[in-house]
């Protein structure tokens, strides 16, 4: 992905906002491809990477469960032998407790029916989120969805990011109270999801890839995503059925 610097920095901004406002030591974002591979798209440090790898290697852990059950999973204290972590993921916990991490947070990244990936955080001290931090974490997980989608969308020119958000960017207050970088989250309108659904059957791809292709096409043409979505729904344009360029196509990224 030659032009991924701009998108990477967007994911970086989300990660930074997590570090600034959620009392955590490290953060990672992983995406699960249609082939079932987990790709770590961002990790703030080696421990965050280790916590991701352990789950991929062992096939168990809070991040995998967060995605499977579509809900936030929090491990209050890895070192607490009476905690649920040891009973639920014995192999993972046995290894994870060797790291400095104590509290783990895993938030699923859901795009409608798609289980896109997980936003994971750890803290070296036993940490409990306040109500406000929980809301902020939800806002940041939502921001991470779009940052990850952009990263999956190959070759987005940096200067096309703004028009792509012309349908109404907002600045979430997620990180602002801590003085960290604000995170811009685009509104994906109803028609964008409809068009992605149509592309699934047109191109024979899953919903994540269909969404990525739609956005990629819009970015490449320098048009707002909503306009391309409307053309697809009106059947006035068709995207090329080009599996080779699919960024997360079967085996495309692994």
């Amino acid at each position, binding site marked *: 992905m030659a032009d991924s610097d701009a998108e990477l920095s967007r994911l970086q901004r989300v990660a930074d906002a997590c570090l600034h406002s959620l009392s955590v030591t490290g953060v990672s974002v992983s995406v699960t491809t249609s082939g079932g591979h987990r790709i770590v798209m961002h990790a703030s440090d080696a421990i965050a990477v280790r916590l991701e790898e352990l789950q991929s290697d062992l096939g168990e852990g809070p991040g995998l469960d967060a995605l499977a059950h579509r809900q*936030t999973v929090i491990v209050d204290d890895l070192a607490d032998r009476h905690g649920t972590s040891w009973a639920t993921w014995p192999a993972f916990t046995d290894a994870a407790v060797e790291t400095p991490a104590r509290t783990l947070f895993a938030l699923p990244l*859901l*795009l*409608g*029916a*798609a289980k896109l990936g997980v936003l994971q955080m750890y803290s070296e001290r036993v940490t409990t*989120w306040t*109500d*406000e931090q*929980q*809301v902020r974490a*939800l*806002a940041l997980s*939502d921001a991470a969805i779009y940052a990850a989608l952009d990263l999956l969308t190959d070759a987005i020119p940096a200067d096309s990011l703004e028009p792509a958000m012309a349908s*109404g960017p*907002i600045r*979430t*207050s997620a990180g602002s109270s801590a003085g960290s970088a604000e995170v811009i*989250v685009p*509104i*994906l*309108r*109803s*028609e964008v*999801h*409809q*068009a*992605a*659904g*149509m*592309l*699934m*059957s*047109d191109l024979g791809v*899953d*919903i994540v890839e269909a969404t990525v292709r739609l956005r990629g096409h819009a970015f490449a043409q320098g048009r707002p995503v909503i306009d391309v979505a*409307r053309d697809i*729904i009106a059947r006035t344009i068709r995207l090329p059925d080009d599996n080779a360029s699919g960024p997360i196509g079967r085996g495309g990224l692994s």
Partner: protein
Amino acid sequence: MSELNTTREYRVAETFVALTDTLVTGFDVADLFNDLAGACVDLLDVHAAGLMLVDVHGRLRVMASSSERSRLLELMEIQNDAGPCLDCYRDGTPVLAEDLGAESERWPAFTEEAMRVGFRAAYALPMRLRSDTIGALNLFHQQPGEVSDATLRLGQALADVATIAILQERASRSGAELSRQLQSALNSRVVIEQAKGLLAGRMELEMPDAFDRLRDHARGTRQRLSDVAEALVTGALDPDELLPHES
């Protein structure tokens, strides 16, 4: 309209019995909101109704609509810039635009689009419980005119049912739990949009027809609307297996 007539009273009662039944027996938020939008058109003498919920970033997003026409969904969504729903959500009070022809300065883009789609009046009622405003019920009429108190009260009662549906599952009174409920409800709406698109593409249907097929199958097989939508999008259900459309 000054009084609810007997037939309408009966339908109102019937509607609330059905909604209450859904609430106590466990329900699919997407399904319930869809029924509510339909009930508004049926009972409130309006031409279209939509329910919007606020997302975790403070934006209003469409949760359900009495019609799946894209332009109606869009008319609701553009109110994030300016419109009766946004004012209603911000103030937590009803906003009544009884003649949209006179509102073009207040909400220029919204008024223009509403009138283009054929609406001349728009009302927004808050979805509110104490200090929380979590969304708004949007009603549209093709003719300008005053709306009766009885209709407004009934509309507010329907909006309150929607509020209760969202708040009911709250395990605690925390803001985070409410945000999670709203996020989950809105995500189930995204699943429905994805499934509509999938069916429209596969069967060459328009979006409202695609939605009808989805809902017919959910009802015919006694499944939740959002579960059927998810099964379609994840490939667990083949579109060819949908129940045939009864026309």
